[in-house]
């Protein structure tokens, strides 16, 4: 009869599941999802045709012109009237719409990728830092950077008024000094007073170089800046300011903002990319921030702090990998949105510069021929937009289910 004694039994390992990472897991879930696979197929088809045609089926839109075949309806066989096959018909300049639709895909793809990269790089980073410093105290050097930048920003108004640009560096220095000063544990009132005086001197004296009134105004500004800099500001401030800026961007109607940015930058596909990218920044910033906030509540972040890992390491080893899922999903859907927005800009004549083929612009250009019956010139670019956007949306939806079934956008 056996005795019950745990020491006799070796520990038996039950690694229940087979060995695979969460990413692999997600991939399995993805390929099991028929709708997502349809999306993946459409996206792959779209990317493949766009890039293959870009590299191997050269097209020079500049010299593509043939009045003799303008506005031909789609024909699949060569006839007397239509000496060449145009499966999507031709446009006003006699250009083959199929060819332009295929090559237009390359532009749409570029717009999507670049603008999402812009939104993601700027918005994602801002949201990441905002969320991070909102939940985790800044360390000394981070505070030095923050206060330095704050001094730089706040001081720039006074510096600009006085046209003394070295002033902003003085204020920047004041900000840094404030971080150091707070370690000396001077009383709050003393500190504010001291910094107000310092700020007033910094602003006022260099302003006096220009004129007495300038000195006065800059002195006042400096006073205010000093008082702000005297406070022990930290990550919450950074987060608040960042998110308030995002609120401002968000409260602009997105299309109008994009139009205004294009008006500012000048037209062109590249400018459109920037405009769409900028408009998308707050989405990623908010998403990243809320994801970071929820991840940084997790005990493994605390564990990393307990081990003494640096902020950079915590950010990039613990937080970034764990917020990737929503970011990937949002980016995929963002690609869809960017393609849609680019098409809208193109439709309004603010997108690609002709003769570059671009779906929205093709639609916008051909729209006026609709009343004379040229439905094909409108139908096919529109279908191309819809299908590619749908593909990314289907894929994004599937990715969401695969990566994080609980998440929603």
């Amino acid at each position: 009869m056996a005795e019950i004694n745990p020491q006799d039994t070796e520990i038996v390992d039950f690694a229940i599941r087979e060995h695979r990472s969460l990413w692999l897991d997600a991939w399995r879930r993805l390929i099991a999802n028929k709708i997502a696979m349809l999306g993946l197929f459409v996206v792959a088809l779209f990317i493949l045709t766009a890039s293959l045609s870009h590299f191997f089926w050269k097209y020079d839109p500049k010299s593509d012109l043939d009045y003799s075949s303008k506005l031909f309806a789609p024909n699949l066989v060569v006839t007397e009237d239509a000496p060449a096959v145009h499966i999507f018909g031709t446009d006003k300049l006699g250009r083959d719409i199929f060819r332009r639709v295929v090559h237009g895909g390359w532009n749409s793809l570029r717009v999507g990728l670049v603008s999402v990269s812009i939104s993601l790089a700027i918005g994602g980073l801002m949201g990441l830092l905002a969320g991070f410093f909102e939940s985790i105290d800044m360390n000394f050097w981070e505070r030095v950077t923050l206060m330095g930048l704050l001094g730089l920003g706040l001081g720039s108004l006074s510096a600009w008024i006085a046209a003394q640009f070295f002033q902003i560096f003085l204020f920047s220095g004041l900000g840094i000094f404030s971080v150091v000063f707070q370690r000396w544990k001077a009383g709050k009132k003393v500190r504010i007073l001291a910094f107000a005086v310092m700020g007033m001197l910094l602003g006022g004296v260099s302003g006096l170089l220009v004129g007495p009134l300038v000195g006065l105004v800059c002195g006042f500004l400096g006073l205010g800046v000093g008082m702000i800099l005297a406070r022990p500001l930290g990550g919450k401030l950074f987060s608040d300011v960042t998110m308030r800026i995002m609120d401002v961007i968000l409260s602009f109607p997105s299309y109008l903002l994009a139009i205004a940015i294009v008006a500012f930058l000048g037209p062109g596909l590249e400018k459109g990319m920037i405009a769409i990218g900028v408009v998308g920044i707050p989405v990623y910033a908010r998403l990243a921030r809320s994801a970071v906030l929820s991840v940084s509540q997790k005990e493994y972040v605390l564990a990393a702090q307990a081990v003494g890992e640096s902020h950079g390491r915590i950010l990039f080893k613990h937080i970034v990998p764990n917020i990737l899922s929503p970011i990937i999903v949002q980016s995929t859907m963002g690609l869809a949105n960017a393609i849609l927005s680019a098409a809208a800009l193109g439709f309004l004549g603010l997108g690609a510069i002709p003769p570059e083929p671009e779906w929205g612009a093709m639609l916008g250009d051909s729209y006026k021929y609709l009343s004379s019956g040229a439905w094909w010139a409108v139908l096919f670019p529109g279908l191309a937009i819809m299908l590619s956007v749908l593909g990314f949306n289907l894929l994004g939806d599937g990715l969401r289910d695969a990566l994080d079934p609980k998440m929603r956008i």
Partner: protein
Amino acid sequence: MNKKSIYTIVGLIVILTMVLTACAPKTPAVTQVPGATDAPAAELPTTFIFGRGADSVQLDPAIVTDGESFRVTGQVLEPLYEYELGSTVPVPALAEECVPNADATVWNCKLREGVKFHDGTDFNADAVVFNFERWRFTTDPYHFASQVFEYYEAMFGGFDDASMITEVKKVDDYNVQFTLSDPLAPFLANLAMDMFAISSPAAIEAAGEAYGTPTGGVVGTGPFKFVSWEEGNQIIVDANADYWGGAPTIKQIVFRVIPDDSARFLALKAGDIHGLEQAVVEDLASAEADPNLTIITRPALNTSYLAFNYNILEFQDIRVREAVAHAIDKEGLISNFFGKYGEVAKNLLPPLVWGHNDAVVDWTFDPALSKQLLSDAGFPDGLSEVTIAEDILNADGAVVYKAGDKIPLRLYYMPVTRFYFPAAKEVGEAMAANLTAAGFNVELYLEGDWPTYLGSRRNGLLVGLYLLGWGGDNGDPDNFTGYFFSGGAEPIKREGWYQNAELADLLRQALVNPDRAAREAIYQQTEQLMHDDVMRIWLGHNNTPLIFSSKVTGYGAQPVGADYFEFIEFVP
């Protein structure tokens, strides 16, 4: 700008007779809503609905410049003179006649008697003086600071002391005397412009700055009275039963805004509107085929062109310019994008304007020759990069392009469609293909939207080839050639830094010469000169098509851009 509503007394009489004989007893006006429901065949609509792409800016003609404003003010207000139907010859309107003195510095105008403004006040010399003084004196209480009397300044040299009209004097109730500082050859043509239509002084006094706005309305002497203005949507004017020229047949005109070209055409086809201007070229074919629609063209008083920026070293070589001229398939461009209502241009002046030189022989479309010329000029491999000749500054004085900068060869195209350029973008694309085929590796360039484009052009910042055009205001050749090139010895940066002392000199001579025949000869000479210098490549003149429902007759088209709606009638 330059679409003006004019008509002549001759035209009026002719048409009125026609109208009167055609339909003698009229059924009384019916209150049936036109267009909304299908009226029984017997009852013809009495409201004419005109579809247009944009709303009027304002209805005080003295302060606006856009055609859509004049389209309405032309119905409500009249100037002292007007243009003869179908031409640009000034004929009396509110004035019975204007007689100059020997050196054409004093004009006596006899006014039409018995005319009343829509508000019931009399039209008389006081009203004329009131209007002219309002326009001229910046100190006048009704020369509102918020308003720009742009055309007065442009046509009469300036305000206050700068004005060429130095005095407008009431001789008696129906006689007015104008005194000019210098003889002004196109004085009557100027007077006939829509901008100088006479408003009711009482109405201006009553409405103040709101005169001409949706709330203030506008009061004139014309065949229609202003009724209402629904901003962005429609303006309604009603027939003036007491019109001195006889009441119009139709009872009402509605000017409806349908910004989209296709939608507007569809609305016309559906019968929602009865007429429109500036249809898409492709729609014209379907309009022609449609028995329910008729096309009427406005004789071309406009020119579209391709300009060179002379601050580019390469373009200073006439062989390069000539190569460009031979590279472009003008026939193809015009027939495809202007449609059959466009004419290929070889002069700046359209054939309608005296001074047009038919003897000029146009450049041929010959890409091979183009390549040859380019090769002769030192570019055997074609031209894809050009060199800035001298520094170009922007409005703020900052250097945008430095002398010696190499930039890609650009073809700037207009970001908008204008009446002189029905499909600027497509023309740009096609032209780029033409040029590419001839060895010019152009890059189509969109400078920005329309204001940006115009701004850059003013500052000579369109560094390359660029598209633009011009529509005449009053049919005088000086309004074309003179506007462009009568600068001094300096390069005119607004005109692509073009500099031609000989041309400037000739234009100055033409302006001060009161002898029309002599002027005509000079303008013909300048046309040849511009052609020989390949200074610009004139593309086309657009006989702007208007499409009407076949139920509508009696519309008279004017080159200057105005509309006669008062003779419109519905026919079964």
